């Protein structure tokens, strides 16, 4: 799980071109959007696309479920795991 967490963190940094932030700065359980890492709604769009491409997962149309999956690095990791059958 640690490897996957770090993989997700690196993807966040790379795909959103975040300056001044390294893997160590991202708290696995903290909120990615708003308070926490401070990502915005456009980041959400771009991250969704990047996650879909890199991990080949299907994002649901139900936006409440999607929001829950994208809450933190930890929730993203378990979402990705759950789709790996």
């Amino acid at each position: 799980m640690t490897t996957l967490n770090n993989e997700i963190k690196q993807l966040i940094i790379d795909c959103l071109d975040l300056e001044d932030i390294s893997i160590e700065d991202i708290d696995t359980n903290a909120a990615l959007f708003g308070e926490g890492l401070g990502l915005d709604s456009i980041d959400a769009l771009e991250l969704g696309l990047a996650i879909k491409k890199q991990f080949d997962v299907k994002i649901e149309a139900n936006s409440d479920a999607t929001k829950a999956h994208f809450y933190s690095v930890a929730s993203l990791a378990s979402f990705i795991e759950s789709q790996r059958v």
Partner: protein
Amino acid sequence: MDNLLLNWLKQGPNTQQLISFNHHDIMPSNRFCAQVAYLYQQLHAQPAQRWLLAAKQSDLFAAGLCAGLLAGKTIILPANTQAGTISELNHQFDAVLADEPVCEVRTFIPLSTEITPPAAKWPKSDHLGELILFTSGSSGEPKAVRKTIAQLDAEVSTLERTFAEQLPHCSVVSTVSHQHIYGLLFKILWPLAANRPFLSEQIEYPETLSYYLAIMPNLCLISSPAQLSRLPGALENQLQHRHPSLIFSSGGPLSFQAATDIEQCYRQVPIEIFGSTETGGIAYRRQHKANEPWQVFSPVTIKQAPDDGALCIQSAYLEQDNQWHKCDDSIELINAQQFTLLNRLDRIVKVEEKRISMVQMEQLLRSHPLVVDAAVAMLTKPRQMLGAIVTLTDEGKALLATEGKLAVNNRIKKHLLSQFERVTLPRRWRYPDAIPQNSEGKRVQSDLISLLKKHD
């Protein structure tokens, strides 16, 4: 098609009109009438005149809006409900009509789907209210823009006249908020007046859009460059089985590339609307080729200012429809109905369609206790974003040395969040000893940009 909105507001929806829908519920005419009548009675009983209106769900928002206008109230529309935005508008409103109590110690009428009021007729009104919207003026202060029903009616009637032929039996979905003029007109007022149901939620993910496209035959998509430029990537640039009947884009320039990519996925080029909160819609176009000229709406007359080349308009959507209004964009005039846009003449920029006064952001930066001076500049890569160049106080420099750059960035960002939306915050931060100036003591944009491009 004259007075489309005015007549609708006076008569209310017909019994067959479906107001709105989402994936588990619909708002039929009778329920909407009951909601509006219920809110109307409460508003009527209150002496307060100026009501702040805010709601996430568009059906609640529409009910509050109609009730307020019918009760002759002045509706104050904040761009968002962030604490800083609301407190800046503090002296502009007396009471709150919203889905959550956005500020304390004011009369508050809640908007809620939990309440099921008894069946009632559409309220009769002898005096319709008006709307106040806000936009960032170049001084940095939010500027109030008044919209009477006559102005909004002129605009809605023109939209229907111009585009109705392309919209047979459509429902309307939107990726933009109804709290701004574009969403207000295209997602709420126009659909209500023209009997087109709208989606009560705001679409955030491409997957949600595809879901509604799959279940509904005719959809009109109200969107913006922020969404439309990213949508083709999410759709893997593939031609889609289901596509919207019509796509609108407004809020900022849509790149030719994005327009072409959308065409590849949806077999049609979006219709772009050019305008502003003050002016309403000015012109529209479909980018079949790069730098396609803009076509003015029929009630708009244009000319070019001789001194700085600025676009000047006369429009039925303006309060004074017989005076020339000078816009902040310079243009190239092609003929009496067509022009191409050149550039902005003030220090207002758009970040993801949010209008930002760089002057206001610099002022707010300078008010932070760790900051001495600040300059903000626009970068275009990897996306349209702001960068901030900040000189720090001794305390700020000490903090930078001990806690690092990220900690300082975050402290200052938090401060900016009191007045700016997160999407608009600077994504590049530089803390030099001095802000670059030329020999005349002026800040040169290209110097600021090259400092921001250079990695620390």
